[in-house]
């Protein structure tokens, strides 16, 4: 029995290699390889074929020819539509992240202060609506915000307004929809962080004469820094590329890069341009993330 286990263990790579290797392998296979495909497509030209782009290399008569079409990238730079769309997305993402943070932090704080059973219940309460597909809930919002919808009906019934307010199909509706959809993703990481705060720190502070307000800003918030960053990342980054919500709730003037990408891809049938756009989007956002990871890693090494 022992020799068998020993023999088996000889074939197993060392624990360290498994831990690094497993996620690396998965991500390599199911993200890196597809990404290489996307890069390849971004260098090709749209064509009428299956799949709808030309091959970038050709091997004929013992000559290997690689043709990289940079036209897609130059077009992206030349046409100001993409830049404005991207800036538009960044703006929406930034504002929504701030709104989620302002709304979500007190919520997470209150949950972390509740009793143990209440915490579980509250967390589930927050997450439950996200388990009914976002589409259904967005459609519910469409019903509420439309000119004939419940909100306007309520406002007119109470006499606050005499005229339906145009909310649906405007940027306001998009903000409401995005905050609605992404709030749980801000609350959860914040909660996971806040719940592990050491209460004795706050007690010590109050014993030393600090007001609750002061302790909050000087102790709780700095300690929650990692949670805040995690929550902001999980809201900001996906919202930049968000498509469904602006499509359903936004108006024609809601210019976001997700919709532009969708258009390039589907309406123009231009997979190469769409791919080039995706590569650029990835490059722009991934660089700060990598820098952030590096600075965090240095900090960890400093502590160890």
């Amino acid at each position, binding site marked *: 029995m022992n020799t068998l286990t020993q023999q088996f263990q000889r074939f197993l790579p060392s*624990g360290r290699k498994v*831990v690094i290797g497993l*996620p*690396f392998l*998965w*991500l390599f296979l*199911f*993200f*890196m390889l*597809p*990404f290489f495909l*996307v890069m390849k497509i971004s260098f090709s030209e749209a064509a009428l074929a299956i799949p709808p782009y030309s091959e970038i290399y050709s091997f004929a008569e013992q000559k290997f020819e690689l043709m990289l079409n940079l036209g897609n990238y130059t077009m992206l730079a030349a046409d100001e539509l993409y830049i404005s769309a991207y800036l538009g997305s960044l703006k929406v993402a930034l504002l929504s992240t701030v709104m989620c943070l302002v*709304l979500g932090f*007190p919520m997470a704080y*209150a*949950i972390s*202060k509740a009793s143990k059973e*209440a915490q*579980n*219940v509250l967390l*589930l309460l*927050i*997450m*439950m*609506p*996200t388990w*009914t*597909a*976002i*589409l*259904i*809930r967005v*459609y*519910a919002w469409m019903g*509420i915000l439309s000119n004939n919808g419940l909100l306007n009906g309520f406002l007119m019934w109470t006499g606050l307004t005499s005229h339906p307010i145009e909310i649906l199909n405007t940027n306001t509706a998009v903000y409401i929809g995005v905050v*609605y959809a992404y709030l749980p*993703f801000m609350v*959860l990481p914040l909660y*996971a*962080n806040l719940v592990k705060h050491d209460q004795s720190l706050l007690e010590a502070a109050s014993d030393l004469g600090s007001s*609750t*307000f002061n302790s*909050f800003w000087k102790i709780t918030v700095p300690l929650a820094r990692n949670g805040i*960053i995690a929550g902001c*990342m*999980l809201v900001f*980054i*996906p919202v930049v*590329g968000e498509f469904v919500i602006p499509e359903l709730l936004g108006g024609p003037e809601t210019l976001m*890069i*997700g919709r532009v*990408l*969708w258009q390039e*891809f589907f309406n123009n049938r231009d997979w190469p341009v*769409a791919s080039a756009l*995706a590569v650029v*989007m990835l490059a722009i956002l*991934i660089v700060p*993330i990598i820098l952030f990871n590096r600075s965090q*890693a240095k900090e960890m090494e400093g502590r160890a």
Partner: protein
Amino acid sequence: MKRFGFSRLMLVLGLAFIYLPMLILVIYSFNASKLVTVWGGWSVKWYVGLLDNSQLMGSVLRSLEIACYTAIAAVALGTLAAFVLTRVTRFKGRTLFGGLVTAPLVMPEVITGLSLLLLFVAMAQMIGWPMERGIVTIWIAHTTFCAAYVAVVVSARLRELDLSIEEAAMDLGARPLKVFFLITIPMIAPSLAAGGMMSFALSLDDLVLASFVSGPGSTTLPMEVFSAVRLGVKPEINAVASLILLAVSLVTFLVWYFSRKAEANRKRAIQDAMDQTASESWQPAAKPMTGATA
């Protein structure tokens, strides 16, 4: 106390904000009229109709199934990745790994979906798998995507953990695997739970990825809903959403009930133990102390 009162208020307001559309959804699922904007009286006919609508119910079950598998796999994968990012000091390709882990978050879903589809098609041509796209391919796409979320949450937590406890355990002879399961995991449990819940939600919600990598006969709930709302939301959709809410509320109630019981049991056990020690240590003064020689 002032802070607490304010945050409690925000919590209530926030929950109200979250639940308002859900309430409307539930009410309208009982609407006898097909049009969402007209109230036609109370009726349960949409729920009854669901029993016949095997397509819709099938997609609900499929979505739930995929979401479960995704949550488990994403938490496992994401935690491993987070661990590597924060604990393993130096290895070749570290920056690349960091980028790989968070990249699925950044990449627009259309492109992730398309690229995975092309990958699966190429794989089918080269090695014969996956012959049919379906639940497995959707699960793979979702796991890759959700693992990024889990990794962000868990690594944030891992970074601020006090390393001395883990080091102490290892000094005392525990192997790294044991340390991980017995010490690290309980300390990051809320982050794991948060990551799992988010992955479940993301998988259930996802429309774009599933549209690309699904195959014939493997539609998910969002796909079903999106393709069915061309003519406006059907009340059956509201009925399905209400049922899901009901099911999860039941689960929430059970969780609350059992954790309350467990808490009460725990308190009682502590109380009993205290009473026991108190009664054992209280000796009537008359009883002589018989030789307590060791």
